[in-house]
């Protein structure tokens, strides 16, 4: 654990990061920007896993292992999202959210 830093301060920082990501997720209108916001949200939750593991249950490894799994799933998700964005750009030449209607049906 970090000397002199309590768990409350770290959880405050991660909550702020989470809500910044949420703000971007709602206000942005571009698929890649939304992807960036999702990365922010995922990272905030990963720090929470690690910090709670370190501060409350230091002799266990569950938090670390789960954060590894979250990072792997995030990487897979980003690869899929990027391929979908590129395929979509080929079809309709745009990645704005409001112009994407071909995938609805």
């Amino acid at each position, binding site marked *: 654990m970090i000397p002199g830093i309590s768990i*409350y301060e770290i959880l405050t920082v991660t909550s702020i990061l989470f809500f910044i990501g949420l703000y971007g997720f709602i*206000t*942005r209108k571009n698929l890649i920007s939304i992807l960036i916001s999702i990365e*922010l949200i995922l990272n905030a939750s990963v*720090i929470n896993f690690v910090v709670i593991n370190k501060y409350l249950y230091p002799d266990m490894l569950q938090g670390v*292992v789960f954060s590894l799994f979250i990072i792997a799933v995030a990487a897979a998700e980003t690869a*899929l999202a990027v391929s979908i*964005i590129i395929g979509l750009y080929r079809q309709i030449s745009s990645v704005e959210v409001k112009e994407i209607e071909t995938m609805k049906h």
Partner: protein
Amino acid sequence: MERIIFYVLAVIMIVFAIASVTSRKMLRSVIYLLFVLCGIAGIYFLIDYNFLAAIQLTVYAGGIIVLIIFSVLLVHHIEMELEIAKISKQILTSIACLLGLGLFLTTIYSYEFKVVENTLTTTTSDIGAALLSYGAGGFILPFEVISVLLLAAMIGAIIIAKGKKLTDKKDEIV
């Protein structure tokens, strides 16, 4: 010393996160995200999880950022400015986010965490043994599931990204 480093990292992360979700230039917002991810890796170094910090730097800063930059360069003109949401929507969203943040913080600060004082160091071999052990507290099954998931995601990404040609060829055969 650690206090100062933590506060500097926290300020860097929050400032660049805000810049990343509000910047109107696409490429800049990706680079701001890179700074946030490096700050998170710094926090992992501070709480003594060196392996996780290395994973964060290689997978996120090395892999995901490069992937997003590729897609930005393939899809956008570099100088293009993004359209922004309406002012009323921005204000409404930020009020909602601040309310949610207040709720989170009151919940966190009203809960009594039973913190265990420790200076344990987790080595990489500990994590590797936990990932591959069959016994109690082992993670061999999720480890294998993640490997299959990564393979499926790779195949899916390839097929989606070049889907049209593949289906055309199939149609000709039929």
